[in-house]
């Protein structure tokens, strides 16, 4: 079941940059992790050495460039705030790779990304591994959207919504998804990759039920251990509670009870 031994490793920050008013990217080198981690998997990051804050913070991988790994994050609390103050040369303890991965061997599928806010993070990495046909991203405002320079080659496949209308279409990302489905000649071939706030995932899930679409979602629950031991991060599925850290974070959309 497990292919790769997980270890806890000290890494050195190579870059930590605010790329939009709401989004940051932190980068570090790890040959071992860079060669083993897969899209959807995450690392448990200790942002300090003295257990204050006490728990580690889970972060999915945003991009891998040779031996360099990047994490996309926003400041939501004490842990991410401390992370934002790290500078080149600072050390972090990271543990992984943890969790399962997105499916990457779909044949004849139209791959549609639906990312809400910082939930877009794993899909840049996924785009490094598979062909993406539509890249949909929503945020509250332009400040939370990835800039063109970050999206790269996927730019031509991108559609954006903001709740305040400061960029792209005003409204929710589900409206873009509806559009994609309507435009599509073979909507049944659509395969969705989803990550974002609970309300967004619920709305996407309703649409997939309505249109009979398939896909998968990465869930973002508060975690303690990250390895499936504490049972603190479970999500409800059609088959009972599952640990989002070990049995997830990726679940089939139709299995999730959101």
């Amino acid at each position, binding site marked *: 079941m*497990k292919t790769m*031994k*997980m*270890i*806890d490793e000290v890494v050195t920050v190579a870059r930590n940059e605010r790329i939009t008013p709401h989004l940051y990217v932190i980068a570090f080198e790890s040959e071992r992790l860079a060669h083993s981690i897969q899209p959807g998997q995450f690392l448990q990051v*200790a942002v300090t050495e003295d*257990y*204050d*804050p*006490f*728990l*580690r913070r889970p972060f999915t991988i945003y991009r891998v460039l040779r031996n360099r790994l990047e994490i996309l994050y926003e400041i939501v609390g004490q842990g991410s705030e401390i992370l934002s103050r790290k500078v080149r040369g600072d050390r972090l303890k990271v*543990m992984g790779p943890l969790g399962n991965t997105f499916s990457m061997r779909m044949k004849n599928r139209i791959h549609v990304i639906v990312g809400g806010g910082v939930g877009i993070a794993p899909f840049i990495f996924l785009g490094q591994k598979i062909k993406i046909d539509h890249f949909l991203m929503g945020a509250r405002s332009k400040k939370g959207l990835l800039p063109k320079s970050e999206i790269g080659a996927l730019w031509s496949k991108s559609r954006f919504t903001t709740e305040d209308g400061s960029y792209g279409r005003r409204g929710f990302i589900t409206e873009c998804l509806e559009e994609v489905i309507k435009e599509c000649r073979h909507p049944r071939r659509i395969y969705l990759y989803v990550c974002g706030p609970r309300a967004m995932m619920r709305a996407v899930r309703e649409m997939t039920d309505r249109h009979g679409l398939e896909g998968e979602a990465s869930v973002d*629950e*508060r*975690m*303690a*251990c*990250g*390895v*499936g*031991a*504490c*049972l*603190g*991060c*479970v*999500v*409800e599925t059609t088959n*009972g*509670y599952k640990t989002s850290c*070990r049995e997830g974070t990726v679940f089939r959309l139709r299995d999730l009870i959101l």
Partner: protein
Amino acid sequence: MTRVAAKSRKGKAEDLTIRMGGLAFKNPVTVASGTFGTSDEYADYVDFEKLGAIITKTVTRKPRQGNVMPRIYETPSGMLNSIGLQNKGIDEFVEHKIPFFSRIKTHLIVNIAGETVEDFVALAKRLDPFREVSALELNISCPNVKKGLEFCAKPELAFEVVRACKEATRHPLITKLSPEAHDFLAVAEACVKAGSDALTAINTLKGMAVDVDGRRPRLASIFGGLSGPAIRPIALRYVYEIRKRFDVPVIGTGGIMTAYDALEFIVTGAHMVSVGTANFVNPRASMEVLEGIEKYCLEHGIRSMDEIRGTLKVEGRKEEVPAG
């Protein structure tokens, strides 16, 4: 796994073995129930066979789904949890977990919990024939389930459940106590009188946290069990009080992060120590505690655990009720 064992055995003379409840343990370090997963979750980080014992997550008669989410919240120097004893029940445990753990050459202590005395007895009886099981830890102190603390609230109930289990099994019994008990020492005494071979002190303390903006409790079940270094001084005090009053071995647990923390418990009189919440933040915590104890003993010329256990000197110090 074996590589780690071989490395630290090099040139080591001191003896970390412990005798407790008629059993010999290779060292005093174990892992607290519920913090070490249900099978191989920590296998990449920990050499299971190096541990003095493994204490399982609580097993109940019937499968339990556990409490609704959110179940955890980080607090200063610790965390709150209200998992609610999620587990697959004793049938699954017997079928899958015992075979899994039987391959690991260390003591297996199975933590059991019930809502009634009959539940405890049924579990004790069910586990009795298994030679792979070294001892049972009776969880009469979980704050996260209905009636979880009831057995620990009254000494006579604690007595009843321990006595009934004692009659139901030949396995040594370790009773895990709650700091929430109104009269902790009376409960401890009842457990000892009923035949508990050892005591574990302490389970979590019931606490809560609040989201001020949302005006909501952070946990779906409002309360959760507080664990981590925040509770270590309380755990230590209870170990001290038990050891002062009763001649019963104690497994000290509560916020142990390092070997120094563990040695605090051992000096105070604990036979064994269990590493709990630390596993969540440092998966190698139990190994580091063990290596640190070995190193301390080596550096201080301590040749056996008997030479350090309960060596706390209190002459000239007087217990006072803290004022103000």
